[in-house]
């Protein structure tokens, strides 16, 4: 066994994102500051033809080509000639289901043309590797924490010296399965979500792509802490007191060697469902008595499912770059009085941002990014 350079620091070398409000990290971040939501009413997704509010990427280009474009952007902005020494860590919960659904319907309810390389969870990595040569890849699939778990593994790979660079790609496209599925559970809203609001009516399914190149080379943004936990409570609902969420956040703080009062902003998972926001709100309230500003950006981007970990870490990094906290767009009446939920975007000194993602089955991940000042 030859472990070298244990516990190397991990930085974000570059990032690129695409969702309903824009095809760049900057465009998406600006939308969160200005309160310009990409969530719109659609009639075509639910079986019963009723309205659902969805965050669709309006583009003539296919989802697959948008993934390729996001990665091409990363390559062109880096010093890399190619990805031949880079590891690819994918996070997806839908994989190729959207393609498979359409094929199944086209074939009149037959599985005969369902190719596993195009239907499976692995299909995202498969598509990417047709275009780019990576040293190796692994795909993580844990519902809404898929890309968050990919980020954790990427950090571990760099820390132990297995790789200098890891490209994390979180990608989930809209599918009939997810829209009808969340509707079946009674948590889908026909309006733009209002996370942490007393009168919230549920979540908005959305699609998105988040690509983050992590590396051991110092940069402005350091991935300083990661933490995870399991609720061990219920297959769909989070622990009502947010016990698992609290544990994940505590583990992230421990990993970053930080006290809770050092966190300057929390980008919440904040889906807009009764269960999540209540549990997460309680956990934040208990763990952060110094009341840092908290906001959910899902009322802007929608809930990008497996991609949300990556996309929201990108938003959190933009918060550090721009030293500006996005407001809670659409929030009218706070359910938890004591939570600091700004309704206007705030410019202030921000050094540490914590970003949450919580998933079905009680899978919880918290990530902490730090602004690194030039010490020369």
């Amino acid at each position: 066994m030859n472990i070298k350079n244990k516990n190397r620091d991990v930085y974000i070398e570059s990032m690129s994102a695409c969702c309903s409000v824009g095809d760049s990290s900057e465009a998406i971040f600006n939308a969160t500051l200005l309160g310009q939501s990409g969530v719109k009413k659609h009639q075509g997704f639910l079986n019963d033809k009723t309205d659902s509010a969805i965050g669709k990427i309006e583009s003539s280009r296919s989802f697959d080509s948008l993934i390729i474009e996001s990665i091409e952007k990363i390559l062109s902005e880096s010093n890399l000639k190619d990805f031949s020494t880079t590891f690819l860590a994918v996070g997806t919960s839908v994989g190729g289901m959207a393609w498979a659904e359409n094929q199944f319907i086209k074939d009149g309810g037959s599985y005969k043309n369902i190719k596993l390389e195009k239907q499976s969870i692995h299909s995202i990595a498969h598509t990417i590797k047709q275009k780019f040569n990576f040293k190796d890849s692994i795909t993580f699939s844990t519902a809404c924490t898929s890309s968050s778990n990919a980020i954790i593994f990427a950090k571990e790979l760099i820390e132990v010296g297995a790789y200098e660079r890891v490209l994390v790609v979180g990608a989930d496209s809209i599918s009939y399965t997810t829209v009808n599925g969340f509707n079946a559970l009674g948590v889908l809203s026909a309006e733009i979500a209002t996370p942490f609001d007393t009168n919230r009516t549920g979540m908005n399914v959305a699609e998105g792509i988040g690509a983050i190149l992590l590396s051991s080379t110092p940069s402005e943004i350091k991935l300083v802490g990661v933490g995870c936990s399991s609720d061990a409570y219920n297959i769909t609902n989070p622990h009502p007191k947010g016990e698992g969420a609290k544990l994940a956040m505590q583990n992230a703080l421990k990993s970053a060697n930080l006290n809770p009062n050092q966190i300057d902003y929390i980008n919440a998972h904040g889906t807009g469902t009764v269960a999540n926001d209540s549990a997460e709100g309680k956990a934040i309230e208990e763990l952060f008595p110094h009341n840092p500003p908290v906001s959910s950006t899902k009322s802007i981007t929608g809930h990008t499912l497996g991609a949300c970990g990556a996309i929201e870490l990108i938003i959190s990094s933009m918060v550090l770059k721009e030293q500006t906290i996005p407001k809670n767009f659409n929030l009218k009446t706070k359910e938890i009085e004591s939570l600091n939920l700004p309704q206007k975007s705030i410019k202030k000194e921000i050094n540490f941002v914590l970003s949450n993602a919580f998933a079905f089955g009680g899978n919880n991940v918290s990530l902490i990014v730090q602004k690194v000042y030039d010490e020369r």
Partner: protein
Amino acid sequence: MITTDRLKEILIEGLALEDINPNEIADSDALFNEGLGLDSVDAIELVVILDNEFGIKFKNMEETKAVFATIQHLTDYINEHKK
């Protein structure tokens, strides 16, 4: 017309209840909490079953609360509303 026994069979099969016979369930048994002990996901599953089997539709989950109170309540409702 369905009997309470038929409803019990539908519940056992549709909700995948194991090791329980219809004769172990009383007509006065509550479906949720005490009684059969079904949960909120079962409530939604039940709405799906009632639509598929009897064409019965509900506007929202609130409407189901009184209907799902006991085996007898639900049997009566089905017989009144099935297509």
